[in-house]
């Protein structure tokens, strides 16, 4: 006796209803606005037909406020696993068409189940956030749901990469789940993220503001630093997810997807010697150095518009996945300040978690001087850089292009903080401080007693610079691996990465270090 056709028909109908979120007309409306539905976001993330959905028929159990009558397909969130470039990846996507994507108990449970699965399977998690917030009718169970998601964000942190896409509203406590993840991508229009919105701010403080000022992608990508990438639309956001994952391992126990070239290209790259200006005062755009260093000039910059005096991002160098950290002399003289220290430290720690070697490009005159910096805690923020580099056990290769002074020299992955190899260009100035300042302290009396103090000072500065503001003092003291021609940088770094890729370093066991916050 074959299966009863009615059963199959019933299943098909239920499935069809879920696929349009129970609201076919609203799907059209969304398309008219140029937005993808929650399900389309997931579908375009994965290879066609490869999405395995978890809990399509899940339903809420709430009976408060007439909710018993309401059907909420999939309880407002699509969860499951699919294939991206042949690699399994877990994803959840909040469905704004179902009760505004609000988070209730079952909605939260589905997200938690998916995250538990991702942890067991060792696969990355992608989270599309598009939700009005807590489902108020479900009361404290909704609140508890957020807590359970946050708890899992923390459990998974450092185990599998977690990437959030803010593709709609993400307000109040809901913003803390993406904030606990590794990378946030936010669409330029239609998305917002804040703890307290303009109405609440006005009621509580009297300040009049707008979502653009406090919660837009532009605000978070340039001012608050909450967002790592801005996407023009849903499709662009998915491209960024795909590109990001192309550099990341599935979990912390496997290697990143290196694609070592069968032969190392050791040829010189003359471009490096054209980028570095003859005048040490003249800034240059460190992006040009990165482009000359990495394969196909293909560099995925993280936090492109925030704390721009440091540049961080992912690339491959002769096939080896690498995290790049580079001072940017074009912006604020390339100094380390509060925000740039925070930005670099977090990136370094991410690379360390996922076995991604770090290449550091140095041209740093120092930490940013200023009252705001000191009062803002540059000491504890700058300390994050020292902490992150010293704690990182991945291969660490440093290239000192130009200035490397004082504490900032140490903070940019000096040998003393555990760099495996340090190369310096002949233009490098490695010293405890700049010549002018040093001479004033060391030769205070000589200058004061000289017949012509100004002339004496100038002569001493010149002498100091010749002796100390060069790579050779450091080289003589075996503080660096080698002084190289800039043109040889790509070959030297590529070789260093290959030679160091098998690095293993164990540290005393402990719960975790106490990084300054």
């Amino acid at each position: 006796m074959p299966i009863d056709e009615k059963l199959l028909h019933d299943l098909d109908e239920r499935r069809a209803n879920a696929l349009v979120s129970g609201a076919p007309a609203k799907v059209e409306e969304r398309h008219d606005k140029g937005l993808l539905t929650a399900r389309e976001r997931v579908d375009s993330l994965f290879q066609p037909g490869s999405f395995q959905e978890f809990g399509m028929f899940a339903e809420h159990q709430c009976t408060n406020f007439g909710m018993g009558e309401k059907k909420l397909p999939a309880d407002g969130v699509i969860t499951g696993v699919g294939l991206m470039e042949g690699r399994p990846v877990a994803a959840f996507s909040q469905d704004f068409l179902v009760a505004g994507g609000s988070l209730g108990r079952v909605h939260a449970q589905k997200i938690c189940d998916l995250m538990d699965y991702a942890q067991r399977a060792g696969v990355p998690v992608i989270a599309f956030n598009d939700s009005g917030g807590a489902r108020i009718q479900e009361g404290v169970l909704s609140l508890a749901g957020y807590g359970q998601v946050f708890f899992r964000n923390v459990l998974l942190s450092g185990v599998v990469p977690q990437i959030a896409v803010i593709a709609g509203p993400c307000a109040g406590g809901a913003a803390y789940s993406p904030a606990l993840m590794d990378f946030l991508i936010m669409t330029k229009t239609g998305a917002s993220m804040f703890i307290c919105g303009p109405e609440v701010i006005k009621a509580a403080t009297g300040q009049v503001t707008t979502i653009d000022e406090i919660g837009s992608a532009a605000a978070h990508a340039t001012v608050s630093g909450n967002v790592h990438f801005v996407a023009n639309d849903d499709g662009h956001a998915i491209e960024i997810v795909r590109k990001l994952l192309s550099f990341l391992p599935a979990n912390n126990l496997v290697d990143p997807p290196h694609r070592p070239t069968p032969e190392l290209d050791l040829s010189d790259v003359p471009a490096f010697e054209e980028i570095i200006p003859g005048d040490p005062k003249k800034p240059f755009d460190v992006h040009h150095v990165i482009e000359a260093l990495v394969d196909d000039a293909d560099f995925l910059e993280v936090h492109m518009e925030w704390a721009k005096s440091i540049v961080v991002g992912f690339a491959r160098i002769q096939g080896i996945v690498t995290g790049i950290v580079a001072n940017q002399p074009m912006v604020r003289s390339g100094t380390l300040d509060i925000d740039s220290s925070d930005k670099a430290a977090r990136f370094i720690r991410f690379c360390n978690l996922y076995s991604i070697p770090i290449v550091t490009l140095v041209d740093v005159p120092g930490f940013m001087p200023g009252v705001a910096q000191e009062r803002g805690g540059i000491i504890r923020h700058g300390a994050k850089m020292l902490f992150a580099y010293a704690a990182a056990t991945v291969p660490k290769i440093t290239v000192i292009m130009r200035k490397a002074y004082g504490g900032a020299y140490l903070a940019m992955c000096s040998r003393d903080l555990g760099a495996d190899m340090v190369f310096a260009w002949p233009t490098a100035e490695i010293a405890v401080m700049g010549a002018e300042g040093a001479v004033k302290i060391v030769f205070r009396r000589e200058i004061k007693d000289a017949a012509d103090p100004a002339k004496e000072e100038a002569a001493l500065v010149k002498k100091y610079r010749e002796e100390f503001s060069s790579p050779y003092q450091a080289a003589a003291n075996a503080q660096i691996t080698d002084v190289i021609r800039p043109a040889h940088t790509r070959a030297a770094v590529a070789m260093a990465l290959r030679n160091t890729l098998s690095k293993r370093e164990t540290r005393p066991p402990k719960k975790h270090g106490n990084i300054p916050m």
Partner: protein
Amino acid sequence: MKKLRVTVDGKAYDVLVEILDEGAPPAPANPGAHPAHVESAHVSAPPVSARSGGGTAAAGDVPSPLAGKVVSIDVRPGQSVEAGAQLLTLEAMKMNTYVFAPAAGTVKETLVAPGDAVAEGQVLVRMS
């Protein structure tokens, strides 16, 4: 199976060579298609209006990115400039820092002179 010709003392022999253990073929430099370059969309910081406590900076005001000394003014009042044009040069931390036009427009006035010390956030140039 490879077909080879071996010449010994001027006499050619055709031989068939079977390679029993070839190992894995060498990986191509970049297997598959080159992934397209992807980057974050460009955005600029939304200005905070005075009513939300953002100070009195008006649209078109170009603030100093850091505290330093003015080295040179690189535009004249009345000059029209493209977005990204170099407006003036500052010196801080023994490094020159260029200040660029945030958008295309006309330089209305320059508020500082070479040698002036400027504070971070101080308006340097007004544009319209």
